[in-house]
């Protein structure tokens, strides 16, 4: 599959933006802790950047994404403003959900970002909705649901595959199989090693990809989005990947050191950079500039968040009713 070099550079930049966002978010979280403020759970997407970026590269603003508790990467890849996202982490009025949602509930419906979810598997049936709406209206939008291997053990997930395939809905289920459901290894959660084959039992397309290989994710997602737009039906993509951090900020690392080292060696950003350098699509200098620019952008976002005002406490009842 041929991908324009501009597109690859753009995707690399997004991956760096996600990585830098997470590192900056952890700094803000620790700043909060230092003054006795616990800013909720924070689930890092570091290590999984190729999945969100490779999938969302095929989406338009009128396509919907339903994210998970580990959703910063999906939000950035869908085009969310990192300043508003950072302000949300601090609960500011300028936050992407006006400080009412926090890390797990970032919404920007104008670009199709339909929110993260604090319930593991909670987004899986919601994602059927915009897919149904597109079919109902005869338009060609698609709906994408990102979820983890933990969510794949929920009953509702299987109901969704059944209904999506039965009605040939334009929905793409993207499992980020990072091998750990919080602190439980996948061998204690699944009696089998792979998720993708479950698609076959529902009569739908299922494909497993190396989730740390942007090119592989991009290609698989392109086929899935194409099938959905053409009305052929849904796809289940199992992206095998790994998170660099523990489940969240307050859970210590418990995974085997050799496993961590093995996956760090397969870092998706380093792999894409290696590819681009070998192809001559980017130079060392351009790469260094890109990283410097992204880091400056995230520092500015953090400053914006710190300087933004918190919501007026008297407004706690706002936005309940339409």
């Amino acid at each position, binding site marked *: 599959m041929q991908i324009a070099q501009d597109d690859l550079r753009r995707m690399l930049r997004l991956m760096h933006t996600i990585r830098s966002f997470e590192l900056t978010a952890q700094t803000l979280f620790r700043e909060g802790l230092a003054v006795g403020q616990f800013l909720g759970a924070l689930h890092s997407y570091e290590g999984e950047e190729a999945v969100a970026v490779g999938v969302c590269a095929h989406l338009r603003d009128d396509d919907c994404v339903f994210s998970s508790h580990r959703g910063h990467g999906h939000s950035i890849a869908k085009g969310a403003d990192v300043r508003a996202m950072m302000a949300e982490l601090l609960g500011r009025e300028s936050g992407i959900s006006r400080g009412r949602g926090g890390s797990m509930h970032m919404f920007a419906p104008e670009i199709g970002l339909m929110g993260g979810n604090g319930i593991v598997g909670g987004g*899986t049936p919601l994602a059927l909705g915009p897919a*149904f709406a597109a079919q109902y209206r005869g338009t060609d939008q698609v709906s994408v649901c990102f979820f983890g291997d933990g969510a794949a053990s929920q009953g509702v997930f299987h109901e969704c595959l059944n209904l999506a395939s039965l009605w040939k809905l334009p929905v793409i289920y993207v499992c980020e199989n990072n091998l750990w459901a919080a602190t439980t290894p996948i061998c204690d959660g699944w009696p089998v090693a792979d998720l993708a084959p479950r698609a076959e039992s529902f009569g739908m397309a299922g494909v497993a990809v190396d989730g740390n290989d942007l090119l592989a994710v991009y290609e698989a997602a392109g086929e899935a989005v194409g099938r959905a737009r053409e009305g052929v039906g849904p796809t289940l993509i199992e992206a095998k990947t790994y998170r660099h951090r523990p489940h969240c900020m307050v859970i210590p690392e418990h995974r085997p050191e050799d496993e961590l080292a093995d996956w760090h060696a397969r870092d998706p950003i380093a792999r894409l950079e290696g590819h681009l350098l070998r192809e001559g699509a980017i130079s060392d200098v351009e790469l260094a500039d890109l990283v410097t620019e992204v880091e400056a952008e995230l520092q500015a976002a953090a400053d914006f968040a710190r300087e933004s005002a918190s919501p007026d406490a008297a407004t706690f009842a706002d936005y309940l009713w339409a």
Partner: protein
Amino acid sequence: MRNVTYIRALNEAIAEEMKRDEAVFVIGEDVADCGGVFGVTAGMMKRFGRERVRQTPISEAAFTGLAVGAAMAGLRPICEIMYVDFATTCMDQILNQAAKLRYMSGGQVTVPLVIRTQQGGGTCEAAQHSQNLEAIFAHVPGMKVAMPSTPYDAKGLLKSAIRDHNPVIFLEHKLLYETKGEMPREEYLVPLGEADVKREGTDVTVVATSLMVLRALEAAETLAGEVSIEVIDLRTLVPLDFEAIAASVRKTGRLVVAQEAWTSGGFGGEIVRRVCEECFDALVAPPKVVGSADVPMPFSPGLEQAVLPDADAIVDAVRAVA
């Protein structure tokens, strides 16, 4: 004026709104071919087609979640859950998702969803087909809750619920379906949040919901000449027309709340709380709540009738406070 059944009233409301707005569709189990197991959507498939009357697998979590997501995408789903007891299999979609999406998104997401279901005992269907769960829905902020007692209210409230921009839980009662009532030929709406004085009186206020409104009216007839009862039909629990309750209690000084739900932990206790907090000075006797005995519904007819509150129970309660 015409005399029509509660089922017919609901059917007309759905058909009128589907005709008025193409975004309105019906989704649920058995809703197309047989028109729902209670016949509320009879004839809809023939009139509006299978695309707008979507018959689903037995998969409440998936299709209710789909309805929530479709509402987020701008459609106006009428989601039928056959028995309120079955809604317990999709409480995540109702309580965690539908009720909270607008708030969590800082007002960016709108969920114009109606969940129609029916509840109540009296048909020997035992413990998993006879519950009254309105208090659960009313307890969680973010959903409106309607409980019509007459065909007139059923039609007017359902039309308002479909046009409302918020999630509405619409609780019908299985024993009301065949009841008849007067209804104008012209179109009308009953607003959500307005209680109705079904019978004026001076001595005791009886606040009732759903089937218990009919039982309260029977009790008022029984006690005519002895105690003058004012029967207030709440029609919706959320929004709650507390002003109507307060105005009546200030007149009578005596309160009985009649609900079919279990007596303990129900919405009746909530009404007593509000009256005690806000109208304590007007009370001349302790308020009473009439409800079901606090046990799962037994199957055997004699046991079931012993558990359910009837008109005599209301008569006894009224005499106790009068």
